């Protein structure tokens, strides 16, 4: 499709609307970078249709509102902006993000929050495989990923810092976790557990909080499974209240089910593997 001249509309001071229809990601990102550099505080992008790298490496304090489906690597290397996505995100949302906030009103694909060092990702729906792999923390930076639905396998693998929440807010009634009576083999795999296989494998920092129960057979052996303690509760409460506010949910309802915590056994999971 030929690249058309961008249609810009000045909605209010410091607010810019961009129509992304038919735009190549390179052109769209150039427009966003230009708008941010020119002092726009709110950038409203309409008709987002799979454009990649939106907000890549952006270091200015802008709010980007996306309407449509964001492509791969949403907010990759981002440092500071807020992205609110009214739709689904594809793979790699918040990849290696340094700070800022990504609020996704739909689902996110694989490797959501890979190697995040700071900032927050709130997903109203579910995420795919390998989410939150190798999340880190550094000084005052604590990355937080909150997943409203369920997560695929390898959640939080090699996790080195930060917090991941899996809430299972929309678990169907058929799901044993939601109190259903269906035989296990008739229930879709995602309903047997909110997390997939190999959750927390190789984790050596941070914590994964799952609302309700966790199947230990699905967890990596480097993770210790225990109920969330009283020490965890203030942090969980603060995160959940913030999350609920973003989506107009009731934090009390989220907190009504006790959380299970996955924490690392050791900061050196593979230290004893070698002979000198």
């Amino acid at each position, binding site marked *: 499709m030929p690249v058309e001249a961008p249609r810009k509309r000045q909605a209010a001071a410091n607010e810019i609307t961009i129509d992304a229809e038919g735009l190549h*990601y*390179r052109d769209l*990102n150039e427009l966003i*970078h230009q708008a941010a550099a020119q002092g726009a505080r709110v950038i409203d992008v309409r008709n987002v249709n799979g454009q*990649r*790298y939106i907000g*890549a*490496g*952006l*270091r200015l304090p802008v709010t980007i509102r996306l309407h449509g489906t964001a492509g791969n*690597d949403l907010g*990759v*290397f*981002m*440092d500071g902006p807020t992205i609110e996505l009214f739709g689904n995100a594809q793979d*790699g949302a918040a*990849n*290696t993000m*340094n700070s800022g906030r990504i609020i996704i009103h739909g689902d996110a694909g694989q*490797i959501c929050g*890979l*190697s995040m*060092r700071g900032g927050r990702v709130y997903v109203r729906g579910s995420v795919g495989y*390998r989410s939150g*792999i*190798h999340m*880190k*923390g*550094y*000084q005052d930076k604590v990355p937080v990923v909150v997943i409203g639905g369920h997560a695929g396998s390898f959640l939080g*693998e*090699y996790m*080195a*810092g930060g917090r991941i929440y899996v809430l299972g807010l929309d678990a169907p009634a058929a799901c*044993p976790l939601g109190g259903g009576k269906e035989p296990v083999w008739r229930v879709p795999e995602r309903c047997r557990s909110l997390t997939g296989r190999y959750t927390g494998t*190789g984790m*050596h*920092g941070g914590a994964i909080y799952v609302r309700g*129960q*966790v*199947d*230990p*057979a*699905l*967890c990596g*052996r480097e993770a*210790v*499974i*225990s*109920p969330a303690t009283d020490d965890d509760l203030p942090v969980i409460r603060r995160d959940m209240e913030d999350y609920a506010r973003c989506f107009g949910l009731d934090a009390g309802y989220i907190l009504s089910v006790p959380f299970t915590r996955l924490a690392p056994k050791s*900061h*050196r*999971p*593979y*230290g*004893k*593997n*070698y*002979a*000198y």
Partner: protein
Amino acid sequence: MSVIKNEPVTEQPAGGLLPTGAVPAGTTGSPPRRTASPADRGSVGVERGGGVGNKEDLAKKTRQAVTPFRRMRPAVRTHPDFRVIVDEDKCTLCRFCVLQCSWDALGWDDRVVPFDENCVGCWRCVAVCPTYAIRIEQWPTMYRENHNWTRFIANSVRKQAGSGGKLLVGTGNDKPYPVYWDHLLIDACQVTNPSIDPLREPMELRTYVGAKPDRVDLAAYLSARERHFIPTDHRSVGDPDRSGDPSANGRPAFDRDLRRRLGIGPQLRLETPIMIAAMSYGAVSLNVQKSCARAVAEMGTYWCTGEGGMHPDHYPYADHTIVQVASGRFAVDADYLNRAAAVEIKIGQGAKPGIGGHLPGEKVTADIASTRMIPEGSDAISPAPHHDIYSIEDLRQLIFAIKEATRYEKPVFVKIAAVHNVAAIASGIVRAGADAVVIDGFRGGTGAAPTMIRDHVGIPIELALAAVDDRLRQEGIRNRATVIASGSIRSSMDVVKAIALGADAVYVGTAALIALGCTLCQQCHRGRCAWGLTTQRPDLVKRVDPEEGWQLIANLFKAWSGEIKETLGLLGINSLESLRGNRERLRAVGLSQAEMDILGVKPAGR
């Protein structure tokens, strides 16, 4: 006997190297180590679908579930590798050697007392002894000759029977595989084509790293000059030094515009085709990196940080720094990417293709933690794959994520280990949009690698390089990316041969370390380098003075550049560009027909 050692024993080789009766620290003296067997996974902790068990239940289940496993003393106590002999007649009792030995191989009891079992053969004591009173010898034990169960293999079995661990080692492959550089000979001019005297003729080593256009569009070039008010001067085409540009400020805009019009990617300008390969802060000390950074800045070339991040001390040399993005994504943020001259995505390393790396928690000091932006004291784990790269398409995605984050201003390198299918992989990498492909051969160095992987995985750089160059030419995409050869480039002649085989530039790592004092004792992974190279211990790190270090490396590069120019002269050419991929100027000795076919060279005499 009161023996004073310069350091408490903090770690012991697990190979039973201690005298009889001594208890190796951290082996039999420590509580037995227990590990859950794979079959027990999932049975520990919380019952499926049930509540969380109480602590006693958990402990009981844990006890039942684990298989006992502990470090043992090997059945046969192996002997030390070396013996240290101190000539008492020559020794002046200055104790300098005792203070300098970081391996606890020398003690003091009114005289120097060697602890042979700890000696790694690094010659620090030999080098610092003012009277040459110290001699290190191979331990003189005769083995019954056995070409199958070599001494190394048999001792490895004993060591592993004791420790149950994977063997770990530093430095590149030391096994006697063929070194193809040493089977290639360079042509020279005689009578029919005159050689050139490099003492009075200029020799061009300048190399541009980055994607080149499919064709040169002179009209686009001229119109871009006109647009940016840069006087047209054909002599200056392609030479930024003589561009006749009246305003320096207009230059970057012109470059950008021209690059866009001609489809040229961002370029690095190398005054000599030798760069310093990735050695991260953590693997090597900060002083080593400082030496490298200053040396390349002075020599007009580049060095790579490795994945340990860029320390603020290197910011003055950022224009000559390539930063690395590896699977651990340590220190990677928008600042890091934009500060550097180029970005390298590390997929693999020649010494350990296909596996990741662990910087052990005890090496993650405050400074390393802040450079890598990770918590202090916890393992820095680089997983085997990048978790966002499972295909060439995914690689393209990361390449373009980096290009987007740097607004297409930085060349993006992709570094892979030389493996069997390297040509097809390199083709994919070029098509994925990389500006440069780094091929790292299996003899390449490492700060730590499992010994068996270092010694048995991958292929030699010479064959890989020839295969990659051939393949890219066949597909008509050789211009789209620079090819950088790496993995044991030992001399200027290795550089010349690599370039004749098709490389645009080379990376050296071990050679730079040797320039700084490395004696190839292969103990980098133990963090106690007596030469202050691969250690973070403050007293050892000081042994490399960056003020001297940079000059050692710069001298080496200067010497090699001189030799390369001399070689160009005897080949009768005055530009490195004329040698690139010019395999007609190479001949092989002692190689099979198949090897010569892959290398694309004829046998000597033909």
